[in-house]
């Protein structure tokens, strides 16, 4: 007898997206939707979206969403969380969004301990505009605005570590969306982040390391190896601060 053991979680649909082959955004969405479902919080959630590749999945999931301007998702989420603290408020951002143009909004929301979860998709490049250097671009990584050199742009910025040393945040973690094992760990962290917000009323931050085969110039099939060799040594995964 046939038994369905894998499919889209409730709250996600199979509408076409325009993500590139090998992109990690859908894995990130799936992690969020599954975690919200598990906590029975999907209907109570408001997700604030950034400007960046995440826009490409406009209608792929059934969560109330507010579209913010580039870099400002954490500030918009702050307004939502302050007026409706009973909501599960998510800011879904990219590394260019949260770690560069919106670093002030990102850090200050964390420092105030807003009752929200900031999710940052870190693929070490500006994806939507076509592969320019971001704050998290690795040393030596080739981008359309040059190869990152320490003397010119400094080292890749570590915002998760910066947030972890602030007093107010309750949960800070970095996970990868590389292998099934990594994704399971990301899901575990995501549930903890959301619980920290919901149960303890604290700020959570979770960074999800993602593939960008198109702008890395790496074939999707080679991405796991590339990321394990190049990204993980710079951005180690794990919990940086936990309230459980």
């Amino acid at each position, binding site marked *: 007898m046939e038994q369905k053991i894998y499919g889209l979680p409730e709250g996600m649909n199979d509408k076409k997206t325009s993500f590139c082959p090998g992109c990690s955004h859908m894995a990130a969405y799936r992690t969020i939707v599954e975690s919200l479902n598990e906590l029975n919080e999907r209907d109570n959630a408001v997700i604030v979206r950034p400007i960046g590749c995440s826009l490409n999945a406009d209608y792929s999931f059934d969560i109330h969403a507010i579209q913010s301007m580039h870099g400002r998702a954490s500030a918009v989420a702050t307004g*939502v969380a302050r*007026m409706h603290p009973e909501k599960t408020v998510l800011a879904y951002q990219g590394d260019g969004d949260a770690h560069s143009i919106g670093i*002030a909004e990102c850090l200050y929301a964390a420092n105030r301990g807003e009752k929200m979860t900031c999710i940052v998709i870190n693929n070490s490049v500006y994806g939507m505009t076509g592969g320019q250097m971001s704050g998290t671009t690795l040393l030596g990584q080739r981008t359309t605005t040059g190869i990152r050199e320490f003397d010119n742009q400094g080292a890749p910025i570590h915002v998760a570590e910066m947030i972890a040393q602030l007093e107010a945040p309750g949960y800070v973690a970095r996970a990868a969306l590389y292998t099934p094992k990594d994704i399971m760990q990301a899901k575990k962290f995501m549930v903890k982040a959301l619980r920290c917000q919901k149960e303890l009323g604290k700020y959570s931050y979770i960074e999800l390391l993602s593939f960008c085969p198109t702008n890395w110039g790496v074939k999707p099939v080679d991405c796991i190896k590339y990321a394990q060799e190049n990204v993980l040594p710079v951005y180690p995964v794990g919990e940086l601060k936990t309230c459980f």
Partner: protein
Amino acid sequence: MAKKEVWQGNEALSESALRAGCRFFAGYPITPQTEITEYLAKRMPQLEGRVFLQGESELASINMVYGASAIGARAMTATSGQGLALMAEGLSQLSDAGVPAVVVDVMRAGPGNGGTESSQGDYSFVSGSLGHGGFKAFIFGPSTVQETADMVYDAFDIADKYRVVVAILIDGMLGHLIEAVELKPFRDMDSLPFRQWAEKNDPTGPKVHWCMGPNWEQHARDVAAMYESWSELAQVDEFMMDDAEYVVTAWGTCARCCKTAIRALRAEGYKVGMIRPKTIFPFPKQSFAALDEGKVKQIINFENAIPEQFLVDVKAALAEARKDIPIVSYTHGMGTCFTADEIEAKLREVVK
């Protein structure tokens, strides 16, 4: 009738906003607006269900307002020119998404860092297009503390009704002016209009807040038609205009000084009047269309901005109505403002 009380402009504005139902304020200190942020920081925690938050910047503040309003709260921010420039992107997004808000600009002097003295130099910036893309705000330009309090009270209703940003354009002089005013009573928070479109209220509607409709171009046409329909909402103060042969055009605090000068000349029999727009957008074009070319000899424009900004709207209104009346313009700027005596002297040169 309630008793008149003595209020500073910035504080009267703040208290009136709370009475109109403002539930969320985020702002950042900047002279000459700071009293608004300070007053609300003290006052909002005294009231139930209100949230005050000092943002880390004007950028953050306007986006906090966006989030609070998108989830259904009447929300406001206040700033001065430099801060408004930083907010421009957010205000444009609010306008496109149809998320209402009230924004107060207490104008200070000059471009760049400028100075903290009073000026009317943000007129074009605010009335042209609030941020990129060409959408507009409904703009009030009060000239007394009473008008400021009344207009901010109405601003929240207009913002809700049309789902737009409403701007209150005052200057440092009016923000710091202390006058006797009668404030309107507290609105019953349960009687405020239900926001069907807000995230929490519309389980059946579209789940993504971006722009108002699926067809973006049509959305822009609808917005343009809405702006056209506002022409009947234009507010104007036609001062001693019945038999006026010399027509002063001015707005805000500058128009107030003009009134004193006009009264002095009227006492001597000179037929001087004034058109003072109380709304900057919609602009009261009908007052200019009603001018009698056979009767009006001269239009005299006064404003505290160099080069002129308000004058551009005056000329456009006259051109649209095909009125060929000579115009002379006088300006101050960069922190220097007209006094009534100075205006009186200029008017004497014209009418003699």
